[in-house]
């Protein structure tokens, strides 16, 4: 894709991605430096990644989309299909965010803790970056102006990091008399952040503290089926919003 090369080049020239890379790098290295125990460091790192990655992916993608509006317009006056233009933009943004993640978090993790848990963090981080870039594309193609676009991106972030968990907890408390293990497994799949968290946690020793549900989870996610399940759900979370965005973009007036 020739086009995404230019999108990528434009993004890499702006300082935001470089600052983001540096931030991730500094945070990861200081986590490993401060904590003696690398698994404790990994736990803190996971918590930061699960909050920061979705937020940056959402906001950066939305802002970039609106800033390149005129560029998209220029491309539309060329003999290029709308699908190709949007997918090139997606490829450009995801490649730059992924490389920021792999340099900022990947290198420290490989240096300090190249374990199973480390790999799970890298896998989850990469998947979440793609998921939230994809969701941000759908939000920005749908919203008419920049303020609405960024607003809805932030709202989505609140939903996935805070509100969703609140609702889940409420349900679990109100129906605590019933066996909910299978049900929690299902609803965790409906939130990519929760899914990522469970996937990483079960690679850690702390999962032993999670009781019966933890054991059930460990049974499921520890197996090959669990990895397949996580990959499958994450892929759906990437493909569906992107597909909806392309469909909407094809009909949109620019």
């Amino acid at each position, binding site marked *: 894709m020739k086009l995404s090369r*230019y999108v990528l080049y*434009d993004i890499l020239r*702006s300082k935001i991605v470089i600052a983001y890379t540096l931030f991730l790098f500094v945070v990861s290295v200081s986590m490993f430096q401060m904590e003696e125990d690398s698994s404790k460091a990994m736990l803190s790192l996971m918590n930061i990644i699960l909050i920061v990655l979705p937020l940056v992916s959402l906001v950066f993608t939305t802002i970039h989309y609106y800033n390149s*509006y*005129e560029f998209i317009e220029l491309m539309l006056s060329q003999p*290029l299909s709308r699908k190709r233009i949007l997918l090139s933009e997606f490829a450009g943004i995801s490649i730059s965010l992924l490389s920021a993640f792999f340099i900022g978090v990947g290198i420290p993790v490989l240096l300090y803790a190249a374990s199973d848990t480390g790999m799970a963090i890298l896998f989850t981080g990469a998947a979440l970056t793609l998921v939230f870039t994809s969701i941000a594309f759908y939000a920005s193609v749908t919203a008419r102006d920049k303020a609405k676009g960024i607003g809805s991106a932030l709202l989505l972030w609140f939903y996935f990091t805070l509100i969703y968990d609140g609702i889940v907890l409420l349900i679990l408390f109100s129906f605590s008399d019933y066996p909910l293990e299978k049900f929690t497994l299902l609803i965790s799949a409906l939130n990519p952040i929760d899914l990522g968290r469970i996937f990483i946690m079960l690679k850690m020793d702390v999962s032993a503290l999670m009781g019966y549900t933890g054991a059930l989870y460990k049974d499921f996610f520890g197996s090959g089926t669990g990895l397949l399940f996580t990959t499958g759900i994450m892929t759906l979370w990437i493909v569906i919003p992107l597909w909806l965005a392309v469909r909407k973009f094809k009909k949109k007036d620019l």
Partner: protein
Amino acid sequence: MIRIENINKRFKKLKALDNISVSFEKGQVISLIGPNGSGKTTLIKSILGMVKPDSGKIFFKDEYINGGFAYRKDIGYMPQIGRYPDNMKIGQLFSMLKNIRNEPEENLDNELLKEYELYSMFEKPMRTLSGGTRQKVSAAIAFLFNPPVLILDEPTAGLDPLSSEMLKEKILREKKKGKLILITSHILSDLDELTTHVMYLQEGKMQFLKNIETLREDTGEIKLGKAIARIMKGEDPTGNFISEILNKNN
């Protein structure tokens, strides 16, 4: 070359294009004229496929466009406001477009690049450019691939008199090659020497598409500006209303 059949476009309450049917042929230079918000840019964008009409069909070289994109290789488009990726240099922008289009170098038209001395600015990032320079870049891009159809949206707005004159000369040269050129502009004196036909839009409706000679005969005015002013006065009922009151008071 371009045939438009009954296209309608509505933006919420505003009717931007109201059942427009028109046909443009090779060798014509059409001036799209009308007040702000009369649908000129919407019409242009519909032809380019940027705006999707609610109903109606557009044909390019007798082929129904229908969401396709390949036909755009035959159209050079200069937008009203050209904005480009901030960090890209002018040289990169041109090499990117060439790269996307894959045209052999000998088919390219670099005249405006030379005339505007853009080659000497190839290393400048787009974000540092003034509005006028951006406009020059837009113009150079529109002519670059030597397309048989040119669509220029307010081409001279923001250009200094010398550059604007150069652009007009360029348009005249392309006109002589028998290209179809669509121009919108509010500076009617710029259009005087270029145009062969005038299309007048108002509130999304096409009022007329006339040969410039006919228009001059009908109105008895040589200058396009005066001819249009006469038509606007004659056809606009509110205009008549005001002049009636003025006459009474006198």
